[in-house]
């Protein structure tokens, strides 16, 4: 398991050398709790801590060339191998650090084909928090683990909890397939997950969730399929198919709670289908997270 400082260092490695050395001099109280590094051309760099942005190095101004160099480092100077994800606005670098991109969109027939002249970058620092599921694991596995949906607003630790639950269930003997579309959950780099996702977990990286679920159903015969962020009807359709095949599901969704989910058309449809038996709702207050388990059926 990595320490908070090591996890931060992994993200800092993506920065240009002179900026990297300045960021490394920041006090640990800032860096240990950092969730994201925000870089904007012509502005000072900032850290996202407990949901809020803190400007670091106030006199330092980020240049467009530095933003470009971050992208080059993240893609190992091979942006063409990341064309699909750049089109979607992010790249996932070594160690599962997701770099969100913003700049001038290149379009073709009203579709974004690439992003040029970067203006802002958001480097997410993936955290492995062992033990974060300890308080709810017993309740979730009581009488056998059933399909569970993790619900929380963005940046509240859905992926971290998903990863931890996958690890615990996998080490407890469950054969799990993880559809890791953006390489965030397992942090796969060159075929090897950077995070511990358990002994019996097979990771499919880079595939769209819908297609990935079908592929894993055919190829890996999983007992549980885990995936991050249900965002489209095709994800729900694939999840329904998997559930109908007798596979247990573990997934995440953006929302403040079950009521919030049920007020949105996509998620209302998901709840109506009764694919998931339980929900874990994450509430974040002053940087602390509270997990509550709710029955859905």
């Amino acid at each position, binding site marked *: 398991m990595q320490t908070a400082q090591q996890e931060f260092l992994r993200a800092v*490695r993506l920065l*240009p*050398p002179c900026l990297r050395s300045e960021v490394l001099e920041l006090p640990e109280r800032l860096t240990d709790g950092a969730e994201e590094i925000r870089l904007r051309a012509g502005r000072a760099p900032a850290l996202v801590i407990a949901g809020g942005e803190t400007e670091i190095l106030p006199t330092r101004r980020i240049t467009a*060339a530095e933003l*470009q*160099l971050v992208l*080059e*480092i993240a*893609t*190992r*100077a*091979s*942006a*063409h*191998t990341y*064309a699909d994800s750049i089109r979607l606005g992010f790249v996932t670098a070594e160690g599962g650090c997701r770099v969100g991109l913003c700049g001038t969109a290149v379009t073709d027939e009203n579709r974004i084909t*690439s992003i040029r002249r970067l203006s802002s970058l958001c480097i997410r620092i993936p955290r492995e928090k062992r033990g974060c599921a300890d308080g709810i694991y017993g309740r979730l596995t009581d009488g056998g683990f059933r399909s569970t949906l993790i619900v929380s607003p963005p940046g509240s630790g859905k992926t971290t909890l998903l990863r931890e639950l996958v690890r615990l269930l996998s080490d407890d003997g469950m054969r799990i397939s993880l559809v890791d579309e953006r390489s965030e959950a397992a942090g796969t780099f060159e075929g090897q997950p950077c995070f511990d996702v358990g002994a019996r977990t097979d990771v499919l990286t880079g595939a769209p969730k819908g297609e990935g679920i079908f592929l894993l159903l055919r190829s890996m015969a999983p007992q549980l399929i885990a995936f991050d962020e249900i965002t489209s009807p095709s994800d729900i359709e694939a999840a329904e198919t998997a559930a109908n095949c007798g596979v247990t599901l573990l997934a995440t969704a953006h929302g403040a709670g079950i009521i919030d989910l049920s007020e949105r058309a996509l998620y209302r449809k998901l709840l109506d289908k009764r694919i998931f038996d339980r929900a874990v709702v994450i509430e974040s207050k002053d940087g602390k997270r509270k997990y509550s388990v709710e029955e859905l059926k």
Partner: protein
Amino acid sequence: MKIIGALMLVCACTLFGVGQARKLYFRRNCLAGALDALRFMDAELKNGAVPIPDIFNELHRLPETKLHGLFENLSMKMESFGEESLSEIWSGCVMNDRSVSLSLRQRQELCRVGTYLGRYSESEQSDAIAACAEHLEAELKRTSDKASEGAKLWTGLGLTFGLMLAAVLI
């Protein structure tokens, strides 16, 4: 003694001429090597979307290439990538590698490829490579003609100069 001295003088001058001729052929071979490397890069980008460091590695491992040293240097620098941009690394290696014989203009043309490498889509990188290859092909033709004419000229001049010098000194 005089005859031996004269013979040595003729040999030395001829060897100098041959050396100059070989330099011309070496430049031609380097240009041909650069063109082969560009074609290889283009194929790897188009057909396999291979990452740039892997392409450099493959090119450095290819035997019998005149640009072996250049790509070895590039591969080494890519191992600690992050200090400079690829464009800076590429132009630094292309402009400063003395194991390769290329004119300043040819080096500058190669440097232009570096501003596209790894930064844009395969097709844009491929277009930049094609533009550079076109220029280098014309240069290769010119250099080949120059090499075959120049080689004869330098060897003949060396021999003639040696003979004349020997005749004068004897």
